[in-house]
């Protein structure tokens, strides 16, 4: 791996995507409208829950607000980077242009993951962080360097985990051609990340911590910010992320071997 090479390339692809996206400027306003309405209704939903109670699974209203901010920011990442690319593998395989990508002296996973970046959903990320900031002020959290660093670390793990899950889904499109179903499945499962994992009981909680780790996606970053993160949880976050990223990479390599029929 050569970090500098891939960083330069990423910047270039980002610049490229912006000039491509400029063809579709009107999407910007549609996106802002979408973002605002979805956050508004998420807040109303929270209000309905907290009319009946002071805490959900041990989380106060402000703490869940932080979690909602994290969820929104991650959703923005999905819309910016992940969703624009996932459908393309199938198109490339169908049109035969996948061969042209494999012929390039660049990591094909990297290229296919980041070739298309949509800029507009940055509003979701910004609004997410805005929510976190608002919740911090109304809770009166004193923001320390350690606090922020831990949050950023956990948030980074969340982004990586999200990427790994998405990459695994994307790799499945070698065999299951209907990607719409895969993204639908993801979106449905992602809904479980709107609430702290403590809401779920028993086996379901284990499943949502280790298998489809919504705990790593939203619960742990939010807990890191509010100071409720235990060392055990932080460790789980790092481990789950490491395992998923590795699995995603190996799965991709396997799919490529299948494609070049080197595995048979």
């Amino acid at each position, binding site marked *: 791996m050569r970090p500098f090479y891939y960083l330069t390339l990423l910047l270039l692809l980002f610049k490229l995507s912006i000039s491509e996206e400029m063809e579709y400027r009107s999407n910007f306003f549609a996106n802002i409208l979408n973002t605002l309405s979805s956050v508004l209704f998420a807040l109303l*939903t929270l209000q309905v829950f907290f009319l009946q109670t002071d805490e959900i699974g041990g989380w106060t209203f402000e703490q869940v607000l932080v979690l909602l901010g994290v969820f929104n920011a991650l959703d923005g990442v999905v819309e910016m980077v992940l969703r624009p690319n996932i459908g393309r593998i199938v198109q490339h395989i169908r049109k035969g242009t996948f061969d042209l990508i494999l012929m390039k002296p660049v990591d094909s996973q990297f290229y296919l993951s980041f070739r298309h970046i949509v800029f507009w959903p940055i509003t979701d990320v910004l609004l997410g962080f805005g929510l976190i900031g608002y919740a911090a002020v109304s809770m009166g959290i004193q923001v320390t360097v350690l606090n922020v660093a831990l949050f950023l670390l956990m948030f980074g793990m969340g982004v990586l985990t999200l990427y790994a899950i998405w990459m695994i889904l994307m790799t499945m499109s070698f065999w299951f051609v209907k990607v719409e179903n895969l993204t639908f499945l993801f979106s449905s499962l992602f809904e479980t990340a*709107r609430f702290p994992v*403590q809401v779920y009981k028993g086996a379901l909680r284990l499943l949502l911590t280790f298998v489809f780790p919504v705990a790593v996606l939203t619960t742990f970053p939010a807990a890191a910010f509010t100071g409720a993160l235990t060392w055990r949880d932080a460790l789980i976050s790092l481990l789950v992320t490491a395992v998923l990223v590795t699995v995603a990479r190996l799965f991709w390599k396997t799919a490529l071997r299948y494609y070049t029929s080197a595995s048979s």
Partner: protein
Amino acid sequence: MKTLWRVYARSMKVHWAILLEYRGDTLFYMIGSFIYPLVTLAVWLAISAGGEVGGYGQRDFILYFLAVLFVARLNGAWDTWEIETMMREGTLSSYLLRPSAFIHWRIAENLVYKLLYGVLMLAAWMIAWPFTDVVHISLDPGFLAVVIVAILLASVIAYMFQYCLAMLGFWTTRMLAIVNLMEAVGLFLSGRIAPYSFLPDWVQATQSFTPFYWLLGFPVDVITGRVSGPAVWSGLGLQVFWAVLFIALYFVLWHRGLRKYSAVGG
């Protein structure tokens, strides 16, 4: 009338064949659509772990959200997305050439899927019956008849509402943005988040003035026995009102839209 009957029989046969071809996807979608109500249920179970809230205990919440699952599957409609694609890709025109109205073809598809969902979920409900009494509801024939009528009216409202939104595609290319906004409002107002009595007072005040409660919350409340007596009859009356309103609106939008569509030669 006889011709229309034949149109439905034939169209449903075609749609059934398509459904069989994509049976995996169909089940996939059915299961996927269960996740959101189940997540919401999990939250309510966490909230009510310490005891009853707002007149609902844990068992009440479970029954409520099972009923939501059940009714939501039977009033689902996806025509806006289908019709948007058809308008964008220009395939709508070929359907317009057929002698029977396009909507019959679409309704036939909707019915085929709902028949499948209905049978599957009814079977699941019956299998669960001996194992847990959470799913027990009154088996009084009069009550069951009211439940069936409420669900039927709800699905007519939901379907015609969706179809009227789809008709907006004749005038704007951003029809789906409006649909998405409606979905978000509907999620909140129809009772998917919580029983209607849990919503803020200002929301409850709008109950009669928007169609959302009548296309989901009302039949669910009838099933769980939260609405009973004369309130049932006035509720059914309001359902009929909304159904008739959207059917009338459909006729206006469809004829105006077609004129507009053929004028631009779409």
